[in-house]
């Protein structure tokens, strides 16, 4: 599970009442891929930069900073400024953080219900039980 993936994940159960975000990460095994992979062509590099710029507006920055720290990367700035978004080195570093850091094994915990979702072999298991999907009736 990448940080890009984690940034979108929410506990969509009825009990969470729309507040099941962000999921707290309890990391057990983290894998970090090589940032300066020489196999990446210039064209690919450019596309990666465009991808980061495109995805930036829809990221929950606070959740990203917190999650990165939970995966052992406490170095993201707490606030995102326009200058950062235009800085090539910043975008390169951000791409690395979003795409190359993988949670291979761990748990994701809902901040409201404390329900835990396991991450095994890099894939989060977000399967809800039938009754978790039904609106709570009085």
């Amino acid at each position: 599970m990448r940080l890009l993936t984690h940034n979108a994940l929410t506990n969509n159960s009825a009990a969470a009442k729309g507040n099941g975000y962000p999921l707290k990460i309890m990391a057990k095994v983290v894998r970090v891929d090589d940032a300066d992979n020489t196999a990446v062509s210039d064209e690919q590099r450019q596309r990666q930069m465009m991808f980061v710029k495109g995805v930036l507006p829809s990221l929950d920055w606070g959740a990203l900073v917190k999650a990165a720290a939970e995966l052992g990367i406490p170095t993201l700035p707490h606030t995102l400024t326009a200058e950062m978004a235009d800085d090539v080195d910043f975008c390169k570093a951000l791409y690395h953080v979003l795409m190359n850091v993988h949670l291979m094994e761990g748990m994701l915990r809902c901040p409201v219900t404390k329900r835990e979702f396991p991450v095994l072999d890099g894939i989060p298991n977000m399967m809800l039980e039938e009754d978790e999907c039904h609106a709570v009736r009085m």
Partner: protein
Amino acid sequence: MKLKHLESALSSMQRDFPNPDVRLEQYPSSPQLAAAVVFTAFERNDVGPGRTVLDLGCGTGMLTAAAAYCESDHVWAIDCDESALMVARVNLQELELDEQVSFLLAQVKSVGKKKAKQPTNKNNKDNNKKGGKSQRGAVAAATNTTLRSSTQDVRNEILNDGGLDGIPLPENLVDTVLTNPPFGTKDNAGMDLRFLKTATRLASRAVYSFHKTSTRAFLKKHVETVWNLPMTVVAEMKFDIPKTYQFHKHQTMDIEVDLIRIDLSPTSDEDGEEDER
């Protein structure tokens, strides 16, 4: 991108499900079909560079791979079968496309199951007045613990689910959702509608989905007048389902299927959005 190259890349994929589950309607998908769908979507700028895509019910990853192959920025692959998802991941790795894909184990909530209400005394009194015909219904309700919902109930359930569809992602996450949903043939009639609704929640630009041609009239009316979304039948196709399960009598079975596209963009693409790559 050439259609032929896309087809050929997809043909190399492992398409058999490790543990085919008839309730999930898991059948090996066709590379030709997936290539045709994605090629069409590509021509409309719904997938490809600058676009994010989600494959809802990705199975062994055929549509996912096609979307990634045509260089979509990012593709989400979601399925409820872990073994299928593992195969999908290997497939994407073999094609060296896994960098662009996020895999997720999640399940679209099922439809049409509800607990029977226990008849109250008040109801029994009314039934007596009516002369006993509805008494039979009351007895049935008391003995069954789970009822199949009526078709109308299923449609209402889907319409009013408030986004609680089992998928842990926010609305408008991606530009385009591609889905090859279960048709609801194994005790979950309406499942294709549920998948379609979820797809419209997750996408901001377009949804491509497959539905039995026999349901076309109902579907178009429902999507356009109840959901208020424009729907077009992009192509008529034939699903060639090979003998997969014990109960299958024929070697292959052809099912007439519509590829539909639902347009979710708030404005038309006349202002140059089409050319934006």
